[in-house]
């Protein structure tokens, strides 16, 4: 995976009736017609497709990432349960292709949350009221935030700092951009030992039997 250490960039708030949008599902992040690719790149064209385009295919000027000041946003601020639904990793790939490497929300759906870490995207959990406050600030004239994973802080344009919690293991993997498969393969002997035990204990699970 790609490493994530610090990030200073534009934060874009994805809003719904004055609040950060909740329950944004992965169908909304990237709809099905963009899942037919065999690569991980070029998916930003599908990102939030039905929000960013009108039914006739024209651009929706009201959508946050279509506004010039947020076109290069690298941070997204959203509401609760972000990334629910399908397991499609195309969702973080599309965010990454757009240049977004940090998502701030009160909560994330499990599979999406996991998929973020696998792609060097930092999902930051902060309380609902803090997310609302950050979204309001991001909607203002100065929307450059700094995220520091080492110190686990979000710094807002006015200099205020918000501390966030992150799993220790995920943090160190992300800081060093760990090759997880390579690291797991260092346990190959243990996996082989497990397989030996498995053949004895649950022999019916071997297809050859």
């Amino acid at each position, binding site marked *: *995976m790609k490493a994530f250490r610090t990030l200073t960039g534009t934060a874009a708030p994805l809003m*719904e*009736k004055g*609040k950060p949008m909740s*329950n944004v*599902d992965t*169908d*909304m992040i990237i*709809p*099905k*017609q963009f*899942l*037919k*690719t*065999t*690569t*991980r790149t070029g998916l930003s064209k599908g990102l939030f497709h*039905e929000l960013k385009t009108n*039914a006739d295919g024209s651009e929706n000027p009201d959508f946050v990432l279509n506004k010039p000041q947020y076109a290069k946003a690298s941070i997204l601020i959203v*509401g*609760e*349960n972000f990334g*629910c*639904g*399908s*397991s*499609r*990793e195309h969702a973080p790939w599309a965010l990454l292709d757009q240049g977004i490497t940090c998502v701030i929300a009160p*909560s994330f*759906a*499990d*599979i999406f949350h*996991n*998929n973020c870490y*696998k792609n060097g995207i930092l999902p930051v959990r902060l309380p609902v009221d803090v997310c609302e406050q950050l979204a309001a600030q991001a909607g203002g004239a100065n929307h450059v935030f700094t995220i520091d994973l080492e110190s686990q802080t979000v710094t807002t344009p006015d200099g205020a700092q918000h501390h966030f919690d992150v*799993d*220790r*293991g*995920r943090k*160190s*993997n992300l800081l060093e951009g760990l090759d*997880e*498969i*390579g690291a*797991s*393969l260092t*346990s*190959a002997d*243990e*996996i082989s030992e*497990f*397989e030996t035990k*498995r053949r004895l204990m*649950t*022999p*019916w*699970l*071997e297809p*050859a*039997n």
Partner: protein
Amino acid sequence: MAGKTLYDKIWDAHVVHTDAASGESLLYIDLHLIHEVTTPQAFDGLKTAGRKVRRPDLTLAVADHNTPTEKQALGMAGVTDPEARNQLETLTRNVAEYGIEYFPMGDIRNGIVHVVGPEQGRTQPGMTIVCGDSHTSTHGAFGALAHGIGTSEVEHVLATQTLRARKMGNFAVEVSGRLQDGVTAKDLALHIIGLIGTAGGTGHVIEFRGEAIEALSMEGRMTLCNLAIEGGARAGLIAPDEKTLDYMKGRPASPKAGAWEVAETYWKTLNSDDDAAWDHVVHVDGGAVEPTITWGTSPEQAIPVSGKTPVPEEIADPVKRAAAERALDYMGLEPGVPIAGTPVQRVFIGSCTNSRIEDLRAAAAIAKGNKVVDGVRAMVVPGSGLVRAQAEAEGLDIVLMEAGFEWREPGCSMCLGMNPDILSPGERCASTSNRNFEGRQGRGGRTHLMSPALAARAAITGVIG
């Protein structure tokens, strides 16, 4: 010390290694199901790194997400979308290169991955099962720890036959009493999701327990566990019992005589101890559950079919109120009106939630002697070639076709609309699938989730109810 839950037992039996510093474990995977949409990038990564598939024999591939549901006998020539064809051909190449068993489109054993696993006897109690598809929770109906994973994790499982995982919480949903006649597992699932919300199970494995669960058929249990993910839980679980064993007996990959008896002894240990510790418990009165459908754009926006759409002003939670306003607008519904009587233009009976033989029987029982009303297009998509063949042996295809339903070939079809089966903007669909998200079945399409019986009734009356 407290006893163990079923999830604890399966977890403990599969931990290869736990990293003390991070708390992350390598969990051995007994069965890895793969399909064409979420694997190309995983195989690509494997090739780039020069890695092998560790256990091709514990991996099974099907083509289901973007296969057309007609003229499958034409093979690739029948796949008109060049991107879909490329994905299917990529899977075919990859499984050949790595020696993975594959049921391609047109093979009678092919179908939706979560129908095929149990049908072939590949899904067994006590296993760990993963697939790059969130509805992998379906297999929990057999007392297997089964959940969806992302493509990077698919690559990790291919290379190591393990998953990097963290232990989740234990969540019990206790359903007492018996479901009323005409109330199905789908109604119960939507009722539970309405109760706990789409994020209710986040970070947990839900075990469904109680008299009403024991009374469910295996098909019903699969429907319920399939929808665990819509309640936020990556995995649903139901302890195996005699029904589980009866379902498994004689299936191609089920243990043969001799091995079966040994396996059975183990399977009978797979239940939660009476003194197991639960992080959450929710009680549901099974007898009080009514036929339930969704009115909105989230599976938690569920109401009895006899109920009314919500009035946003009456919703105290501002987040839920905003969501209800947006959903009513998207669905083209007025607040505070009965949902019954709402006209539909499309009916979809299928998906990994409700495309098994019992589902098709329920639809056919309603369709028999009736006609799909003018102006409604109704489609039945069996979950696999074998389900289709069984339905045809029972004459269900004739009943459905005489009533005016389209009788299609297996696949995920209109559940996610990756193949040509999609809704047009504004079209309203009575659907037995699992997600009613905006645009899920086609941009601007309006999906109401419901049981096969309610969907079939919508086809012949033209309205929800």
